[in-house]
């Protein structure tokens, strides 16, 4: 059953925004386990779209299909008007520089210092960014935007969970992406650090004018950050709307998320 909630996005009605990312009828199965069963979404410019779902509902599978880490069985994925299934590897790699991805476990390269972690994507894309030479200014700018300029020479093992998440965010920001995908940005963090990360995400969105797709099951995070939400249940977008729309819904499955 697909429950369509009222979408009250007044801003969009007044001035239709550019479509940054679109998924149409995404299907993905692992043997008999059908994870995605025709999931669709649209992300507009400057929007914070939150995807909520239970553990194992396929949120991470969806986001991995989105960046080409996993191949979908069927469906269409367009990022900035480009169908990622039809791109060559080089075109896909170039497109990936426009997309930041914050991993659940931060995924910092643990054999590199914080500086080297941030320099890595810059040095890999000389065609796009030119031969930057001294990257100190860019690295410092990205670290300052997450409040960790002092950690530039530390190793990831010397950082706390919250600091790792911030450095990972700085690493995605250094390429100045147009879209940022967050995979459970507050999971495993204490409430105070989680709140700091959420505030940081909001500040970054304003500063860098990014569009964000946030996967979470943290209701507080969704309440603060979301412009619009999609509830992912049984591989479909079960319900869609603003946080208030969904939080006041009478549907039992929707209510279960907000208890």
């Amino acid at each position, binding site marked *: 059953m697909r429950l369509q909630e009222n979408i009250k996005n007044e801003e969009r009605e007044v001035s239709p925004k550019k479509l940054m990312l679109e998924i149409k009828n995404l299907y993905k199965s692992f043997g008999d386990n059908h994870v995605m069963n025709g999931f669709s979404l649209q992300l507009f410019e400057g929007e914070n779209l939150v995807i909520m779902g239970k553990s194992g509902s396929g949120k991470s599978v969806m986001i991995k299909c989105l960046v080409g880490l996993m191949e979908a069985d069927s469906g269409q994925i367009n990022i900035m008007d480009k169908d990622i299934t039809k791109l060559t590897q080089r075109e896909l790699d170039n497109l*990936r*520089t426009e997309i930041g991805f914050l*991993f659940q476990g931060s995924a910092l390269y643990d054999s590199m210092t914080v500086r080297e972690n941030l320099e890595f994507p810059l040095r890999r*894309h000389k065609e796009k960014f030119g031969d930057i030479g001294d990257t100190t200014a860019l690295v410092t700018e990205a670290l300052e935007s997450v409040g960790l300029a002092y950690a530039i020479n530390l190793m990831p093992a010397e950082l706390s969970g919250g600091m790792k998440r911030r450095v990972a965010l700085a690493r995605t920001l250094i*390429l100045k992406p147009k879209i940022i995908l967050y995979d459970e940005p507050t999971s495993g963090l204490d409430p105070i650090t989680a709140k700091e990360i959420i505030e940081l995400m909001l500040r970054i969105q304003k500063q860098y004018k990014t569009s964000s797709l946030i996967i979470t099951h943290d209701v507080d995070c969704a309440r603060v950050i979301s412009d619009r939400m999609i509830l992912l249940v049984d591989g479909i977008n079960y319900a869609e709307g603003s946080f208030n729309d969904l939080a006041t819904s009478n549907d039992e499955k929707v209510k279960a998320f907000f208890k």
Partner: protein
Amino acid sequence: MLILKKITSKANAFFIEIGEMSYFAGRFFKEVFTKPFEFKELLKQCYNIGNRSLLLVGITGFIMGLVLTLQTRPTLEEFGAESWMPSMVSISIIREIGPVIIALIFAGRIASGIGAELGSMRVTEQIDAMEVSGTNPFKYLVVTRILATTLMLPILVIFGDVIALYGSYIVESLKGDVSFQLYFIKVFNALEFGDIIPATIKTFFFGFAIGLVGCFKGYYCKKGTVGVGLAANSAVVFSSMLLFIIDFIAVFVTDIFFDI
């Protein structure tokens, strides 16, 4: 019946793994000739892999030469054939013992290291992060490591062989009365191209096999810390087994071309 079923399923899994590894090797040959070339990372890996193994290979080679000479000398003495010692030691070390023992030591150190390193990178999503940032992780991590092991092992084997011969000379100079010059003149007189060339060529294959297995096990490591341990462990077991198979084929082929 149950035992037969278990054997069949184990054999199936083994052959599937062989197939996957062949595909992995095929991808290596495809990627190694396509741009961009990761020269900087290749040099870093060559330094890491070569330099990290230097001391171990040196000590192994030295003890190998020392022990071989100490244990063989009494038998040769019985026949009054001690003067044959340099020839015997050099041929056995250069042809077989040196490459195989050093490759096994190298496999224990490097294949497990690569398996564990790439395995933990897989488990902590570092490989995914690399891919998402627009870097080909296969090229950056796998191609460079396989090339580094392929290039470094022959150099390490030559180094280990020289140290082994020096170890052998030390025993000879203590037990008998032979000069450094005479010992090495006898060593080089005994050796032919048919001893050196095939033995050196096979070490490239050894190095390739060690890098391939280590990278394959790590790159496709299953989730969790248990997966990392298994990747490191099976990388050593599988690469050691592969070394003996390659050695058997190498000796067979050498026999055809060089008539050993």
